[in-house]
């Protein structure tokens, strides 16, 4: 096993262990029931326990093979910028779509993705944003009658 994979096992095991702990803590208030008639909390806690055991095994396996420092998977600055921008754009979309409405938010997503993430020119970005948002709104919202998010300000 390469050092990097060993470190990934540690990280993954720790994350899953945290999830198992969260499930255990959050599920404390649920009725456990009996083995013959399990309550609402029985299954989640059984699973949390199982997950804890499995993630511990993963963690131990990772620690048993200590590796070098965790190598950054994307060392390149421009790659990092692209990924951060895209994640940010997605988060913004979800946060803003209720207020700004589908059309504006979708156009903004397109502009960010085409102009900065994709590195195309402004003219390119604006045309694609206009076509993409209006076109998808028409197809999904109008023709297919999908309940697209209606903003507080605009459609």
């Amino acid at each position, binding site marked *: 096993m390469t050092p990097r994979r060993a470190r990934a096992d540690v990280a993954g095991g720790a994350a899953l262990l945290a999830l198992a702990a969260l499930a255990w803590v959050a599920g404390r208030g649920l009725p456990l029931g009996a083995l013959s008639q399990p309550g609402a*909390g029985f299954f989640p806690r059984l699973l949390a326990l199982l997950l804890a055991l499995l993630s511990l095994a993963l963690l131990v*396996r990772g620690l048993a093979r200590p590796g070098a420092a965790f190598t950054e998977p994307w060392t390149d600055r421009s790659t990092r910028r692209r990924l951060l921008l895209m994640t940010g754009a997605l988060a913004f*979309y979800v946060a803003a*779509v209720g207020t700004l409405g589908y059309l504006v938010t979708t156009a903004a997503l397109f502009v960010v993705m085409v102009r900065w993430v994709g590195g195309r020119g402004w003219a390119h970005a604006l045309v694609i944003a206009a076509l993409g948002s209006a076109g998808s709104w028409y197809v*999904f919202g109008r023709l297919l009658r999908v309940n*697209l998010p209606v903003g*507080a300000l605009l459609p």
Partner: protein
Amino acid sequence: MDAFAPIVHGFATAFEPARILYCLIGVVVGTIVGVLPGLGPAATIALLLPATYRLDPVSAVIMLAGIYYGSQYGGSTTAILVRIPGESSSMVTCYDGYAMTRQGRAGAALGMAALASFAAGTAAVVGLMLVAPLLGRFALAFGPAEYASLMILGLTLVAWLGSASLLKSLAMAVTGLLLATVGQDPVAGVERFTFGTQALLDGIDLVPVFMGLFGVAEVLETMERPPAEQRLPTPTGLWPTRQDFTDSAAPVARGTVLGFLLGVLPGGGATIASIASYVIEKRVAKNRARLGQGAIEGVAGPEAANNAAATGSFIPLLTLGIPANVVMAMMLAALTLHGIRPGPLLVGERPDLFWGVIASMYLGNALLLILNLPLVGLFIQILRTPYPVLAPLILLFCLIGSYSVTGQTAEVATKARLRRGAAGARADPRSPARGVAAPGARDLPGERRRLRDAPDLARPAARRRRVAGGARAQAGPAPGPGLREAPGTLSAAWPGILTRGGKCTPAFLTTLENTRSLRACPCASVKLLHRLP
């Protein structure tokens, strides 16, 4: 020859020009619905249900059935091209289908998906004709213990075959099970891991999870590469090679049989069938590592299985009057709207409908093949789109997909539950949703911020309706008057074998629980069943 007379009559019924047209409309709409992620056949059938009022029942059912099996053809397209499953049943097609696209073999994958779907769909219709009544009874014998065993077998197989590390696979399987416990507990109705939000009350929907794990993850992964390497390779060749056909024959045959059998089971259906087929292909493959790296078997098997399952799931509906999944619950609603009682007597009472619908499926599958093969050339042009333009489109599809699914599932569920009699208060089930959605969302600004729960804009509306719809949701485990169906609707729709002495039979109750198609059993004598999906 008298035995064949109804079948011949069925073909004559299905091949009337107007019916051919409705079949064509159905399969075209189905293909579109399948291609577009997030717009499922159940939601579409619910939308089109009012439009079928004016049609005669046979045409209506022919069209609606076409939507369902048509969607199984289209679902693979986006899975293969951009790694977003168009339907949840095309999820496993993402693995090998998209890997083939990366190798420049998108045309072969799409072509094989259409051919496998056609072969399986047609074979399943033959099966439907021959063994429908027999299999219907077999499906009813499947109880909770059998389902639990099936699920454990499936999870074990997936974990064992899934990846190089058994430990990781098992950990992920348990994580998935844990995520599935989010929401209202199906037995007692206790809230689990909802953290006080309404958004999580109905659990985590499968489709947004796929969209995130496949679609968004794929875009992120591609973005890691330098721009010059991001572009997907231009496909070489539109058609599967001779080797592809040789490799696919056995997987298609296995997928068809497996899919058909799993489709018949209530609560089974196309998604489970396609996963099972993939698992089997991985199990029997001589070189197991090949699957997942762009093997045609990984496309052909699951695509055959989901089509066969879609056809197979008509069996419990047509022969027993029991919906095997949500789509079939919609079909049941369509039939009852037209005053038809599906069940053991259907084939005798309405042979024109029974055999007409089955005969139309041959036609529909042929039409779908004719439609889909030329579309392969068109669809692969999508790959010529520069990635900076394609990426936001993929993200948008994922967002709309996860947004619309939950909003519409709530709607579909409401509709399936309320049926005609009980739903009298609402002439058009869509209008309240639209009217209430926005103000409802404004009451809950905090919930909007969740990535996965963008759909909750539509949810409060659904919840309000649920509350308004006769306090059913609050009825709890004790059967109260609120649980009772309106007279003359469901209880009357099910004939004697499902209810005995005014009470539902245990087998029927199990089926209802498995399908999660109704909130309460028709006789209202037994405690609250599953929540609706």
